[in-house]
């Protein structure tokens, strides 16, 4: 009897000891929509994860799950991560919003961070980057560079973030080139290289000589390279492997500082549910190197545009702007408010086609 008691207390002691060890480390989980090697969106999130590991060293443990479909599957994966003892979980795609909210309700002690959505709760924050600021720079370069005046745009899923990007790029392309026309193809995937390649080819066949993409793979750049004389931009990541080819610049998402700051907040116990939306100025959105394919004056203009956005002197959505149906949106000098931008579900005047519902 004594022996069994002894054993039991030993087991108990061991148990608490290991629990104590586990508690020393802050466990941070990441849920990715694509593979970490996509070279775009998920790749950059994973770079952020690695930065967290490097910054905190032994004090942190990270786990991740890649290629998690948006929807019910995501809820299962997030729950699993919470059950495994994660203290902080980043869910990095729009479609994880409701699953994250559901799981957050079940695990009040775990902190959740959802990217690119709009819902928050006591233990669920959201964060996103003002990609449209980068899109404005991209639109400027595109408008100057196109010779056919046709710019192809590969849309992923018709949510406000993507529509905002299309509008921002169009406004700034139109500003420098009144004849410019946007052709938009929706592929309804964030990451599907085959569909992205087909879409890029269809756009190039129809005369587009600039391809913009809001999808995560490098396939459209590969298609542009094959077609020759077509330029494109790195999306979400620098996509520097195409720097000698079609890639003339890029929008880079830099999540590392945010991830480090939020992990620190969890460690310090100062974490609060907030909604973060940072742009070029704090460095969450970066513009990748503009290559020599772009004439020096265009490059200088693009960089000046970037600087003025960063300094807060210029907002990419500044009036006068009209909606596609011709109704007034922003008066002269008026700047779009964040609420409208976050819920943007209309094209600006001049864009053709309808937004798929």
């Amino acid at each position, binding site marked *: 009897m004594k022996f069994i008691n002894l054993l039991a207390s030993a087991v108990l002691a061991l148990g608490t000891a290991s629990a104590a060890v586990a508690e020393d480390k802050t466990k941070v989980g990441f849920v990715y929509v694509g593979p970490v090697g996509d070279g775009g969106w998920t790749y950059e999130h994973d770079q952020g994860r690695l930065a967290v590991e490097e910054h905190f060293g032994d004090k942190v443990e990270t786990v991740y799950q890649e290629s998690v479909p948006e929807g019910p599957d995501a809820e299962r994966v997030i729950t699993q991560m919470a059950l495994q003892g994660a203290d902080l979980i980043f869910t990095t795609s729009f479609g994880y919003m409701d699953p994250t909210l559901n799981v957050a309700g079940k695990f009040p002690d775990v902190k959740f961070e959802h990217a690119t959505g709009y819902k928050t709760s006591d233990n669920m924050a959201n964060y996103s980057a003002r990609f449209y600021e980068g899109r404005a720079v991209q639109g400027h370069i595109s408008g100057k560079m196109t010779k056919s005046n046709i710019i192809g745009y590969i849309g992923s899923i018709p949510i406000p973030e993507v529509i905002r990007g299309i509008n921002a790029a169009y406004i700034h392309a139109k500003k420098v080139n009144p004849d410019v026309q946007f052709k938009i193809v929706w592929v309804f995937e964030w990451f599907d290289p085959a569909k992205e390649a087909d879409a890029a080819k*269809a756009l190039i066949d129809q005369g587009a000589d600039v391809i913009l993409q809001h999808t995560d793979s490098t396939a459209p750049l590969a298609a542009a390279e094959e077609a020759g004389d077509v330029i494109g931009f790195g999306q979400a990541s620098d996509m520097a492997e195409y720097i000698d080819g079609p890639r003339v610049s890029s929008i880079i998402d830099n999540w590392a500082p945010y991830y480090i700051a939020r992990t620190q907040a969890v460690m310090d116990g100062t974490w609060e549910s907030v909604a973060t939306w940072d742009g070029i100025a704090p460095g969450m959105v970066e513009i990748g190197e503009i290559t020599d394919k772009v004439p020096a004056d265009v490059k200088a203009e693009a960089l000046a545009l970037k600087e003025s956005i960063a300094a807060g002197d210029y907002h990419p959505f500044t009036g006068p702007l009209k909606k596609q149906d011709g109704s007034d949106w922003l008066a002269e000098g008026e700047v779009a408010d964040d609420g409208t931008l976050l819920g943007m579900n209309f094209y600006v005047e001049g864009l053709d086609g309808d937004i798929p519902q």
Partner: protein
Amino acid sequence: MDLSSIKPALLLASLMIAATPVIYAAIGELVVERAGVLNLGVEGMMITGAICGFIAAVNTDSPMLGFMAAAVGGALLSLLFALLTQYALANQVASGLALTLFGLGVSSLLGQGYVGIKPPSTPKLDIPVLSDLPGIGTVLSAHDIMIYLGLLLVAAVWAVLKYTRIGLILRAVGENHDAAHALGYKVVRVRVLAIMFGGACAGLGGAYISLVRVPQWTEGMTAGVGWIALALVVFASWRAGRVLLGAWLFGGVTVLQLNLQAAGVAIPVEYLSMSPYLITIVVLVIMSSDKNKAPASLGKIFHASS
């Protein structure tokens, strides 16, 4: 809407590219089914071929070696199916489905570490006579060699099945394996060879996707093309020429829907995206009226004792 921006010649040229993976996979499956074997594992063999070809092409820097490796990879995987169905006498439908699942799994295992890499580009052939042809010059010329090989393969399969003794034996095995056995033909051997041919073709089709059409490796990138190929064999009522027709139809609708979208046609995108599959189904239903064309021994298990 601006339909004039869709250029028919360019559309047809990209149709050829979109149709090629289906052509390879379907012509291989056609031979398998003509030999009386129903291999539902086309998708699995394609994706395995896609990754085998990708790995070989990246490591040797030669797309041609890549395609060869893809054929070998597809054939090796199909050998597993042959073993199960021809020697272990397992159910062909179940084995084929298992082969697809296995192929998808094994390819994503092999593909770890190959995501996001650029493969060497496959050179284009410029055939002088073809490119000078008015009108169809753009359609037919300046493609990569695999497109022409695919067309040649269809012609070869057609000729072999129709005119040669080998074709006759293959068909005999597929129509009535007992009679073929009684005549002294090695039913199992013929079928194993046909299955391997089918696997190699499916592998080539898969590698065409990962090396030329996309070109990149992603898990599950064949995205159902193998199933379309299976359907096309039925659609073609087991005839080589009609496989070509069906593949072009499918490829054409796939390409056309993207072009219509880019031209701003006011049809909801969802309808356009499902149209290639919808049309395949409709055509299948129409064609299913002549069922008598199916090889009589299709899907039946053969054992010399029975």
